[in-house]
């Protein structure tokens, strides 16, 4: 980190190599579109480089870079046409059991369902289930209390479960 903060590009290249996959995947799960995720990943690292002076080593680097990535992705979402979101109150047509999907299709169903929940719920799902972060790390990244992290996570799971049930994935 010190070498990066001294402007050492090679050292920063090593940081990119280490974190590009989780950053890209977090952006991908939040945005769905690989091109958008690539843009967000690139912007994330460029911003990190520009603001290395403000990074304090007593904090976890991955929390810092994920925070930039999540904010960038949420900003990118805000700039795009909003997707139709579910609130848990709408009642879609219930498909029959014949539409149950198999495990390899479940991932696609989950990705689809994720895109139908609000970005703040999607963000906690991504951080918890794709980045495998603790409540505390999520709280640090999203700058919200742990209690709010839990509340959003539980609500997000409920919404996703209900949506998947409506789609016949459950």
């Amino acid at each position, binding site marked *: 980190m*010190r070498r*990066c*903060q*001294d*402007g050492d*590009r090679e050292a*920063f*290249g090593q940081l*990119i*190599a280490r974190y*590009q*996959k989780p950053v*890209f*995947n977090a952006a*991908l*799960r939040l945005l769905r579109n*690989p091109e958008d995720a*690539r843009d967000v*990943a*690139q912007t994330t*690292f*460029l911003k990190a*480089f*520009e603001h*290395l*002076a*403000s*990074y*304090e*080593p007593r904090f976890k680097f991955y929390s810092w870079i994920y925070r930039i990535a999540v904010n960038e992705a949420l900003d990118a979402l805000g700039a795009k046409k909003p997707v139709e979101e579910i609130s848990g109150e709408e009642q879609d047509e219930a498909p029959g059991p014949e539409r149950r999907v198999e*495990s390899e299709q*479940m*991932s696609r169903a*989950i*990705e689809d369902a994720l895109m139908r929940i609000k970005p703040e719920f999607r963000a906690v*799902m991504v951080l*918890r*289930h*794709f980045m*495998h972060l603790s*409540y505390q790390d999520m709280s640090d990244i999203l700058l919200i209390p742990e209690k709010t992290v*839990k509340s959003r*996570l*539980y609500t997000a*799971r*409920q919404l*996703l*479960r209900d949506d*998947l*049930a409506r789609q016949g994935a*459950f």
Partner: protein
Amino acid sequence: MTDPGYLELIHAEIDGELDARQRAELSRRLLADPAARSLRDDFQRLCKALDAVAEVEPPPQLRESILAALPPLPVRRAWYAPLQRWRYAAMVAGVVAAGALIYETVRGPMPATSEVVGTIALAPAAILVDAVQLANGPVSGRVSLYRDRAMLALRFEVKASPATGVQITSAGRTLRVDHIGQDRPPGTALTVALPGIAMRGQSVQVTFRAGDRTVGTATLRAPGGP
């Protein structure tokens, strides 16, 4: 409607956050409520499926494209700037002290000269030996004399115009601090080392000057010695 209390227990179980008492509580409720068992199964299945979603490899040229787009900025370390300042201050103090030692050794007692002195950071253990409060005027505030390890140091907590300089005289030696009011926010202090000056009960004369004009004076007494 499932009560929120045990919904929370179900989620906490999935996240590995249950203690023994909560686990027992959840087991008791699940045994008693088939709807709760079904809900828990759903959430467990959902989370298992979520955790099984495969990671995607980033585009192959992502790292290179980021490196190519990096701005040509020298990056400074704000987080350790205070540490650096202490290091620089210690280095400046060391250089000043060593310079003074060599100077005194080579020079011996000679007529008054004028040297520009550097600023230092006062060590926390420095001892206050004298202080003068300046009345309101072109220069106002407090000047303090400290013993900082093996040398003396003057601390200025003064308001002065940016053009004001300080001349420090003691025992035939004269030191100079240029632009004492420059580049510092109001209320901050400036400390200068006085290597080789007045260690044995002599006075330290401080004269504030704006160009050729004297705009304030203060006299401080150094501690006596054997």
